[in-house]
């Protein structure tokens, strides 16, 4: 068990974490603004992965163009998701649990529609880098993982900028605190919420193509959203930077447990870890959380 080995495993952990972080950002955005866990995000990721395949694999656009186009597709899908799964719930003022259930169903729907059209074979996105790794002696860093990490941070910074420094972000924050009062103040709450889904969808779009590039494209790739959920909770529900930190931590812990105890029993250990963590620090890493009533 030498130092190189440990450093490599740390990098592996951060790589995993970067992937989770990419998912977590979009997930956490919806949670912080709309206060529910959007499992439909997984459906968006799956469809975006296929979109990414279409742009990069079929049309052979270069990676940057493909990512941007996938982001656009994701954004549109986000709006679609809102329309079919959540808009009516807002009208009826349903409790947040309904959003959750509706989101799971919508996610299943998207993924199964993909199976109908694309389920006959597997697809892969042409590699973004001709030399996939950076080799520092015996330590290997995959360029795609590093890119995911950078992209994720940039996106996070951009989203935080919008939320904290723009008037649109102000509207978002107002609606997240109280949609009705925001309406009373003259804001079009519905439009603001739809806009949130647009942004979350865009994030899903980027996640989708990167996940597809890293792990090959299949309709159920969106099921990784569960990791985004865990990462958001560990990071502190409602905090976007927290969700990134949570994701990285989750990735590293998974790798540590896999290295030490083997992969099979790791989910059981993660359960124990999560339990202890949530009991000791329910406000998550960031220390911020959405208050339930009292």
């Amino acid at each position, binding site marked *: 068990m030498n130092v190189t080995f440990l450093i490599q495993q740390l990098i592996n952990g951060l790589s995993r974490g970067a992937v989770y972080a990419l998912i977590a950002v979009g997930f956490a955005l919806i949670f912080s603004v709309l206060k529910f866990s959007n499992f439909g995000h997984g459906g968006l990721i799956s469809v975006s992965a296929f979109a990414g395949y279409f742009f990069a694999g079929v049309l052979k656009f270069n990676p940057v163009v493909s990512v941007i186009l996938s982001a656009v597709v994701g954004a549109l899908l986000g709006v679609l998701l809102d329309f079919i799964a959540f808009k009516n719930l807002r009208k009826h003022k349903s409790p947040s649990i309904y959003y959750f259930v509706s989101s799971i169903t919508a996610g299943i729907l998207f993924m199964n529609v993909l199976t109908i059209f694309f389920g006959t074979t597997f697809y892969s996105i042409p590699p973004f880098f001709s030399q*996939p790794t950076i080799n520092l002696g015996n330590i290997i860093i995959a360029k795609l993982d590093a890119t995911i990490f950078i992209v994720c941070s940039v996106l996070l910074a951009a989203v935080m900028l919008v939320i904290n420094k723009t008037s649109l972000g102000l509207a978002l924050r107002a609606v997240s605190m109280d949609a009705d009062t925001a309406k009373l103040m003259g804001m079009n709450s519905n439009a603001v919420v739809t806009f949130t889904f647009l942004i979350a969808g865009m994030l899903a779009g980027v996640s989708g193509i990167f996940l597809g590039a890293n792990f090959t494209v299949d309709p159920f790739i969106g099921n990784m959203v569960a990791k985004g959920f865990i990462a958001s909770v560990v990071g502190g529900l409602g905090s976007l930077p927290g969700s990134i930190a949570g994701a990285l931590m989750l990735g590293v812990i998974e790798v540590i447990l896999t290295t030490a105890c083997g*992969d099979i029993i790791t989910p059981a250990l993660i359960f124990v870890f999560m339990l202890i963590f949530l009991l000791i620090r329910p406000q998550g890493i960031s220390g911020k959380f959405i208050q339930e009533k009292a």
Partner: protein
Amino acid sequence: MKKRGLLAALLAVIMILTAGCSSEGKSSTPVGSQNSNAPSIGKTSEGGDIIIGTLLDTSASMAAAGKATVWGADYAVKEINDAGGINGRKLKIIHYDVKGDPNESITAYNRLVDQDKAVAVVGPGLSNIGIALAPVAEDKKVPIVSHFMDERATTNEKTKAAWKYIYLAEPSCNQQAEAIAAYSVEKLNVKTVAILYDSSNAYSTTHAIPYQKYVESKGVKVVASESFTSDAKDYKAQLTKIISTKPDAIFVPAYAQQNALAYKQARELGYTGLIIGNNTYSAPFNTLVQGTPISNLFFIYNVDFQSANTKFLGDAYKSANGTDPLPNVAFGYDNVKIIANALKLAKNPNDSVEVNSLIETKTTAVKTSSGPITIDPTTHRPSGMGVFIAKWDESGKKISLLDYYKS
């Protein structure tokens, strides 16, 4: 009273469903009750269509394989009907999607038997479903032919005899794993090996275990054994562990997508040694690893779509679908051919019991796309059916066959 009406309507539906529940009356009716069932002696008159069915996953995670099997089966049926059918009678095939779910499979199997009067069934190549269906098939007496490679699907572990109404039409995972284990030891001179398998997938574990047993019995040391689960996509932690033990070879028996990821990530992490695989390394593996040169990789190859026996099938699939065929196309085709062979020999092809005994005893050198298949009546698995050991060329365009191992 709209709600009451709705409720009444739903109750009516339920009662209609239960109304069919006639007098059988036996209080414990196990799956596919033994008493109330009669083998499907045809209500179809002489000269009517002969009905067979398929149970395949065409909508869940194994949809790609399932759809390929459906295509192969349909092709076989068309070929048979074009050539005059079964002694002049047309063969009709009904497909049911089972979502990879054992409950659905049992229900769909019963539906094929009871409602559609199928006389034989092509099953899904999923071992857990095979194991769940084996006792049901014995109760309902309609044979199932498939490619579930787990030997427990064809062998009753308690009695050690074969389940009577279920058949495997390709070498079992034990046989395949041993074949490539033998190759690893004899031709690749492997002295230390590591195994990376899918712990959530019986298909993978039932390869890993016999491989390990075989190589260890020949003095090879298994220096590491790591696993991942089907839904995970990143195996770098496990691979880093494995690579640190410096094995001559890593054995990775999983499904195509995971094999591709494992291969890519192993090479990325700097592993240049041998990677050894099971029978899911043919297409689409090569497209999935695009960008990573394929070398030092040896795997099991069941279906050579370039061979004389199989080329027609592969070409037909490619021109119809535009993509390369999966091995499952051949499996679907072969299963139907085996069933058709028995149907042709049967005096009454609507008698599933007779058809079953013919599958059991008269599947001898049946011409399929995998060459002649003979099923051993004692094991219900093929005898003398071997597997190729193959490798890809560097660009991933062509497979070359290196060896052939028979069990």
